[in-house]
């Protein structure tokens, strides 16, 4: 019953988020100094053509009617057409989203691996110099501006050392693998194009590392804190005292329990990575959603900006919901509305 209640809440929440996001972006887009009709009709269009465009866009309607129309279209899955390319924004975004997802998942993988391994290591040596050093490094990680770090990594590993490729998803001479999943690495592996796979992985490394380095600190701190707590619990001490190898206790018993609070922040972490990717993608010229939305922001292409914000906010709510379900599955005691 409680679980059902929670699901209903989440769905309502989803609706509220969509309403709120659209309202905010809608209001912003109607505060623009420029005239969208003028923008779409072209700089040399006469007043008649602009008037026609205005009517076609529904801009001659009162604001609330325009908003209602926008929501109505949205419910049919129609996010409108880009002011710049005149193509449906949802399709444009869908075309670049796999690139962003591939980058984010790789970053998440690196960051979780680093966070868990170093977090456990620090917790086990709680209070030692190693622990202090790791904590300091983690805090420094979240203190470094990602755009600056990306720039410096690019300069060092590509510019100075020349051991990693510079920008983009693939060398320009190579043709991308036929799209199956949209992930170059996965597609290349599935099609046995090993040279492409290798190249794609090399391209992934620096941007993913940049994103991971600025986000692993948060994960590490949580893992470390909950590990310390779990390790001090009686049943862990008993287990160690009863002669079970220390390694087994740490990884099989303690870590499993310490991961529970960690799971709850994964959603937040994913969101942070997504926003981080907007900046990091521009530095590494990663052809993903971040680069796309940034271009849209500079072109004041509001249909595109609105589509991006709505999709991302929805994804955020859904991911948090999934994390909640996961959390409930791991930890059956918690069944109340948060």
């Amino acid at each position, binding site marked *: 019953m409680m679980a059902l209640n929670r699901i209903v809440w989440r769905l309502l929440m989803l609706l509220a988020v969509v309403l709120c996001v659209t309202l905010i972006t809608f209001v912003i887009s109607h505060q623009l*100094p*420029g005239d969208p009709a003028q*923008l779409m009709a*072209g700089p*040399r269009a006469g007043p008649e053509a602009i008037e026609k465009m205005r009517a076609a866009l529904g801009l001659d309607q009162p604001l609330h009617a325009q908003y209602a129309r926008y929501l109505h279209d949205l419910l049919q899955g129609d996010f409108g057409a880009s002011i*710049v*390319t*005149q*193509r449906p924004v949802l399709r*444009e975004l869908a075309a*670049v989203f796999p690139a962003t997802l591939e980058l984010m998942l790789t970053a998440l993988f690196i960051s979780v*691996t680093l966070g868990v391994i170093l977090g456990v290591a620090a917790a086990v040596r709680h209070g030692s110099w190693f622990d202090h050093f790791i904590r300091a490094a983690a805090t420094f990680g979240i203190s470094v501006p990602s755009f600056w770090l990306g720039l410096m990594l*690019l*300069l060092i590993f*590509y*510019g100075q050392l*020349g051991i990693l*490729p*510079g*920008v*983009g998803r693939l*060398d*320009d*001479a*190579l043709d991308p693998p036929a799209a199956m999943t949209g992930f170059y690495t996965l597609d290349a*592996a599935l099609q046995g194009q*090993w*040279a492409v*796979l*290798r*190249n794609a*992985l*090399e391209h992934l490394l620096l941007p993913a590392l940049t994103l991971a380095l600025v986000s692993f600190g948060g994960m590490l701190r949580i893992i470390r804190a909950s590990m310390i707590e779990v390790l001090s619990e009686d049943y862990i001490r008993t287990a160690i005292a009863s002669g079970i190898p220390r390694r087994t206790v740490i*990884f099989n018993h303690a870590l499993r329990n310490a991961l529970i609070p960690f799971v709850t922040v994964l959603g937040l972490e994913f969101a942070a990575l997504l926003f981080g990717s907007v900046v990091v993608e521009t*530095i590494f*010229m990663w*052809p993903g959603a971040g*680069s*796309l939305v940034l*271009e849209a922001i500079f072109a*004041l292409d509001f249909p595109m900006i609105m589509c991006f914000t709505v999709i991302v906010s929805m994804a955020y709510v859904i991911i948090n919901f999934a994390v909640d379900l996961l959390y409930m599955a791991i930890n059956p005691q918690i069944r109340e509305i948060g």
Partner: protein
Amino acid sequence: MRLLGIALAFMLSAPWLAACDDDAVSQARRQTLIIGKASGLSTIDPGTTVMAYNFAPMSLSYERLLRFVVADGSPTGAVEGELAESWRLDDDGKSWLFTLKQNHRFDDGSLVTAAAVRFSFLRTLRLGLGPAQALSGLEDVEAIDARTVRFRLAAPSPIFPLILALPPMVVINPTVLAHQKGDDLARAWLSEHTAGSGPYRVASWERGQRIVLKPNPYAAETPRYFQKIVLKTVKDNASRRLLLERGDIDIFEGVTPDMADKVAQMSGVVLFERPTPVIVALAMNTTRAPFTDIRVRKAISLAIDRRAIASGVVHGHASLVNGVLPAGIPGHDPDLPEVLRDLSTARALLKEAGIAPRTAFTLSYVPASATVDSTALAIQNQLADAGLKIRLETLAPSAFAKVLAGDFDLTLSNWSADFPDPWPIMQFAYHSLNAGEGYNLSRYANAEVDGLLTRAEHAMDAEERTALYEQAQRIVMAEEPMVNLFAVHGLLAYRTDVRGLRYNAWQPGIYNVESMYRGDDAP
């Protein structure tokens, strides 16, 4: 945990087993030409754009009737046939007759015919955008037979063949109408696809990132070496340079004056530098007091140290413009003296005109590049020496409309000629018809100049035209609505193993890739 280890081991090891493919990869790289562009493209529809940054895919995928003859990096002023076998002025003294070459084919295999020429130009006229403005005297295009086409003009135009050599004046396959949406004349489709008879065709486009071109199998001039062209947008100058240095791009566009010397020193890189007629000028609003007063304009002109800007801001990669017409254009007078800074005369003129010291004016400009920013700062500094206080107002590109509408004191103008003729500069920058939107930014209006320019526009005799333009130039110089700061140099960097490049500094971004090759692989 164990699973994680296996995944990690797989990710790290598997790809390196692929080293055996390296030869294939490097061969593919050799036959790929990568051009690093400084800005993204907005559209590649020839009927809708006059922006030079959009021209590259257009010029590679389509053919024009005529093209400019280029010698040593600059246009000679002559044209040669691309699709046209021959052309001549018709008996009425204003229309032009063209005969097409045989066997030029579009990328679907169909022949380029007079009907296609007619379709393309009427389409451009109906779209009524930038390219149509350049064709403003064109009344009709008639397909007389399959290979003969007549351009009927309203008035004699000596520069019409030059206009037809401009990049957007291409011939489009009329079958594109199959992609028409509503009555858009296939505008949506052509904005990101090509349908021409050029050596290449656009294969894919990741907006804001890169455009890939592959050979057009039916082209009359098939590519001799490069099987793939990548137009890669790398806005950040440092990243683009890094890519050039590491050989990940072959041709580097957007060499800025402040990086030119460093690029020239890079190993394996050639820096190409030629003067161009791109003039950067300080335009004064001649319809707003006190710039209505010639003395004030003269004072500002004399307070500016052109030489300091050319060396300090543009680092010597620019030429001084002593008159109105830059070198390379008929009517340019190489004997004009350099305008030297004269602060005391400038102050005296300002005093005479009743301008109190520390009077404030605003310089409104679009900070399009570091060079523009530095130029504005230098002007601010130099005019301060003459007792004027200049406030800098940076404008978003869309906000430049305010300047075009005449709401400004001072602004920076950047204007050029695409071909060696006085018309593009004189007609647009100084004819009162083009005040504001037409790019006469200073809104200069002088009936005598207007008369001279209109007569020159239709004079079919070359000597008579040049004399008319020279006369107009003298009047403009005396009234000085704009301070011509410098003419920039065309700069392009490319890897030394790129061979056979015939580049026209006056038309950046256009390449003869079909006849280029790499290293010693001469075909």
